[in-house]
């Protein structure tokens, strides 16, 4: 009988452990580092209509694809002052990610590309090592046409690799945090 007593003590001990377990509902996690929205605002030098390019993916890694909007056509032969705004809109109010990137600018770089030679890009902002970052940039259009503009954010790229500081992503390495392609026309 001694054994049965021991068994029952152990059994009761388990019940106590079980009863002690927390029955409250878990807390939701609002992801802090998610970038849901990238907005590129292009303001023509010398006046004209500003153009915004936006990619917005409110469900993060969820099944819905990002929504891509282009506010209007670009003007031919024009230089635009470009700036990027990055937001986490899963939290209210929306949180800006720009500061984080500015603080760790040596570990981040944006890359800009256009097809059909519709535009060229130049970096305006640089990190402590004089390497480009890309939160600020200029976009210059030439002739009329249609094509796409791609903006890529790489985390921990090799900024000293060949061509990277000129904006060529080929040898950059690192991890992709954002990739967005916008279909644009130049009029």
């Amino acid at each position, binding site marked *: 009988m001694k054994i049965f007593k021991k*068994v029952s003590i152990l059994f009761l001990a388990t019940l106590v452990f079980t009863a002690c377990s927390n029955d409250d509902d878990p807390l939701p*996690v609002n992801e802090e*580092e998610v970038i849901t929205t990238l907005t590129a605002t292009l303001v023509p030098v010398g006046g004209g209509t500003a153009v915004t390019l936006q990619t917005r993916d409110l469900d993060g890694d969820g*099944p819905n694809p990002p929504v891509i909007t282009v506010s209007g056509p670009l003007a031919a032969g024009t230089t635009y002052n470009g700036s990027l705004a990055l937001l986490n809109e899963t939290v209210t109010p929306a949180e800006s990610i720009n500061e984080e990137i500015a603080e760790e600018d040596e570990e981040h770089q944006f890359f800009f590309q256009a097809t059909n030679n519709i535009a060229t890009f130049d970096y305006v902002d640089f990190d402590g090592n004089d390497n480009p970052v890309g939160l600020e940039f200029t976009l210059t259009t030439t002739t009329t046409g249609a094509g796409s503009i791609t903006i*890529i954010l790489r985390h921990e790229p090799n900024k000293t690799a060949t061509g990277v500081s000129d904006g060529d992503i080929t040898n950059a390495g690192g*991890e*992709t945090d954002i*990739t967005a392609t916008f279909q644009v026309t130049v009029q």
Partner: protein
Amino acid sequence: MKYYVLIVACCFINITHSQNCNSKFFGEVHDFHDGTPIIDANIYIETLDKYTTSDINGKFSVENLCDGKITITVSHLACETKRLDIQISGDTFSVINLEHHIEELNEVQVDGTTTSKLTKTSQETLLKTDAIERFSALSLGDALKQISGVSSINTGNSIVKPVINGLHSSRIIVMTNGVRLQDQEWGIEHAPNIDLNTAGSINVIKGANALAYGGDAIGGVIVLKPSNISLKDSLYGKTIISGQTNGRGYSLNSSLTKTYQQGWYVGAQASLKRFGDFEAPDYSLTNTGLNSKGFSINGGFKTFEKGFNVYYSYLNNDIAILRSSHIGNIEDLVNAINSQQPLVVEDFSYDINAPRQDVTHQIIKADFYKRFKNFGRLEVQYDFQNNHRFEYDIRVGADRDKPAIDLTLKTHTIRTNLKVDSKSNATYEFGMNVGYQNNFANPDTGVRRLIPDYDKYDFGVFAVSGFRLNDNTHLDFGLRYDFNRIDAKKFYITSRWIERGYDVDFGDIVIDDLGTQLLTNPVFDYHNVSASTGIAFKLNERNSIIFNYGLSNRAPNPSELFSDGLHHSAARIELGDLRIKQETSNRISGTYLYEQESFSLNLEAFYNHISDYIFIEPTGTEQTIRGAFPVWGYNQTNAALFGMDMMANYKFNEQWSFNHKSSLIKGRDLSLEQALIDMPSFKTVNILGYSNEKWLRFNSELQSELVLRQNDFPNNNFEVFIPRTEEMVLVDVSSPPPAYHLLHFQSDITLNLSAKTNLNIGLNITNILNTSYREYLNRLRYFADDLGRNFMIQLKLNY
């Protein structure tokens, strides 16, 4: 019995007031199990240096004894020797029970290496202490690869999961010192939290035939047992130190045990391992170091009739994961696959940076057993396990040092086991276990939970029986029932909930709607029946055969049900499915054994049919702001695994020997009529050994390991649009790496430092030719080559 002695003693007490030297000590020697008399037992009276033996009825007597205390030792061939103090007071009668049982003998015998197989009719392999100690600096998965048919699935070289006949993770049960390991074993990158140095022996049972351990071991069972405790007054220990060139690290393990003849014992063991970045032949594998710390303490009391054991173990592994394997999107994966070498190669360092894992596993166990005469042995055990897993990703800003995963898994289990072995030709074993498990996913990580909070309840009962029909035939039967309930609280992104169609099928389990997220409470019950039968037949002195059949069911694990998110090293979104049911395996196997002095052969064949086999497959791609990702979803199909394992050993003479191991396995998806993913490819190992006792017990062996390319694989390659180049690119995630051949060498000598102390010095060289290769079952094969040449020196001191 005590009363008997007392009554007998009382009868004489009145007439023996003074010192009486005419007393007679007489009695009977019985077998503890069935009470039958033991013939020819030696009865030695230590205090008087007198001998006698028991007769055909187990009876003995010694005359002309003086009253007072005598100490006797009763021994018999194949019995546990018993030492008793007897109070002689006139003519004294005593019944002495001896343990006459080979199996149990191993548990209490003196020799530290005596071990035995756990089953008679299964495909079972036993690794003894020597074979384990060689791998002291490595992991359980590495040590088990010595067994034909056991391979491993790796994430780099430090995270090694054993694969038995093509199955791994939740399909394998790992038992350590009687405790079923509960350490989030569902994940491929979750290696068993075992310090190999705590094991004195390892039994590997292929298939689900060892029902006492669980009914869901479709792949097999791995049983690690501590070294046996000897019942004598002794203090012994061992220390193993090794240093190696690859990883520029060391491993240190030390243990000390104190035993007492009465049955008390206490032991402690501790180990440390430290490695820096490992090296492939052509480059350093940046961020692949390891820092491991573990200790265990063990104490209790042990005799043949009763005993208890209290055990505690602690193990912490801090493992760096190859820096280049952390990627952002599918384009990065394409770059990694197409690049001949890892994208990040830095100078050697001991630093352990993100991505990394930091896992702590603790076990507390208490067990108690008692043996009842003419009946059997009852055992009760309680164990508690706490598994705490941190995974650190490469993160930015204030979250840089925050873990991305912080899971605490707590498990309580009570087991009782009754073994009825009073009949010599039949044993019966009954058992029951009750378990409670709680998983807590800390929300402070700021990353959505990969595995949700849950409570899990388990209940199992089993009955196993073994019959010895005659000297050559052994028959086993087993039956088991398991109940599992999982009660989870999980958040789903609303869009995912709808995309999966859960709003239709599981609308009633939503308990809170937070707008973009839903809190749900899935509760699932699973009833599983497993059965096993086997026959072992000895044809003659040299040939024997074994056949067995096993039916087992496995309930889906939390990962298969609830996975929901991006997997960084694979650059894929992995999705579980709440609709997944348990899988059912029917496995038949046959073994042929041939044994003579210079040659032995072991041929094992199996066919494992698994209905509703749970596996993960690509189901499409999804666009996120980071780019496109392939989606892999858990699904069920009917599958068959079949194969053959061979082990052969030939001794040319006292010095030279040859050893061959090979294994072939095929896995088929019967519904889709294609190969199963991640099946080990054909492997053959040939070892030429030379030993010479005269040269300080010199042993050496040259080992050739040939692994062929896996040509049976499902084609999961897909095309993806790369915005940067504006091209569709084929992502080749399926093609296995080419065949490879490696040469290894190992040797050792043993020096006797004193009567009880010896020193074993070993030299091991792995990958002698510094061959560059990649292994199909290494998840980091897309990113880097496997390890290059390594020299290791090992010093083993037994004292």
